């Protein structure tokens, strides 16, 4: 193998399944799919040596690379080291509390909630909107806005 032997290693603990890496990969080697309540992200075992876009993009710094460049040495135990196939991480999707559509991974929402509660004073109801999909958030806001006018128009 004269080509790259660099391995791409995603950290399953850190990764929140946001798909930033899938958007940014110029070779489109990182892919994702969603089925029922699971989002799966597939990472290639290795890829071009001179690109680190996915690692740079990752908000959780969950992607690292391993260069088995002591190739002579590591060739013998390469099998135990190198995952021969691409690696797929699965994430459970949270359903919107209003319409039931799965819209984000549970880990993504946890992260968002955590940052929000750290940085912003929350209303007494907490960050209730994080349980809703963007469409339903708009609907809730719209409903609230319309309340007074609807009352007025009923009379």
């Amino acid at each position, binding site marked *: 193998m004269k080509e790259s032997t660099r391995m791409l290693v995603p950290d399953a603990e850190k990764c929140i399944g*946001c798909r930033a890496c899938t*958007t*940014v990969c110029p070779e489109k080697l990182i892919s994702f799919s969603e089925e029922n309540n699971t989002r799966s992200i597939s990472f290639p075992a290795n890829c071009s040596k001179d690109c680190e876009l996915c690692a740079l*993009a990752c908000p959780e710094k969950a992607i690292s690379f391993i260069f088995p460049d002591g190739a002579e040495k590591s060739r013998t135990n390469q099998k135990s080291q190198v995952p021969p196939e691409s690696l797929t991480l699965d994430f459970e999707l949270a359903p919107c509390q209003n319409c039931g559509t799965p819209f984000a991974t549970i880990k*993504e929402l946890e992260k968002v909630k955590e940052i929000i509660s750290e940085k912003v004073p929350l209303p007494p109801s907490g960050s209730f*909107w994080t349980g809703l999909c963007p469409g339903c958030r708009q609907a809730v806001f719209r409903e609230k806005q319309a309340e007074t*006018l609807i009352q007025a128009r*009923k009379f």
Partner: protein
Amino acid sequence: MPEAVYADLSRCIACHACELACERENKSSRISVQVVRGLAAVPVSCRQCETPLCAAVCPGEALSYGENGLEYDAEKCIGCRLCVLACPFGTAELRAGVVERCDLCQGKEIPACVATCPAGALFRAEVESLGGNTRTRRAERIKKALGNLPLPACGRENR
């Protein structure tokens, strides 16, 4: 306080002209009108929050709060969608790796939706200037635009 596009709901007729105007200006619409319980039409777009949650969660500092309110730098955006998940109003969207939200038609004096609204329901304003009715608000704006120009007097002497 930052400015945002506000709506006089009693005037909105749900004609969706604002959505078309926005699409014309920004390729895809960043404002959406829907009718609530058949009784009131409500347009919703980015509220230009003073403590923007979208910017708070942005890991790449692509969204930040600057002098001109909420600013977005597409170069720094990594497309992680956390802003979309943080926005309480559901008005940020990621399309083709770019965050789409109302930026008041950056560089334009009047946002396209405001300029288009045939019912005169949409206007661009600071939140403090809200309240009162549309006429008062418009009069205030004309007054502000005229600055210190002497107001034309009316009456016989001026004829």
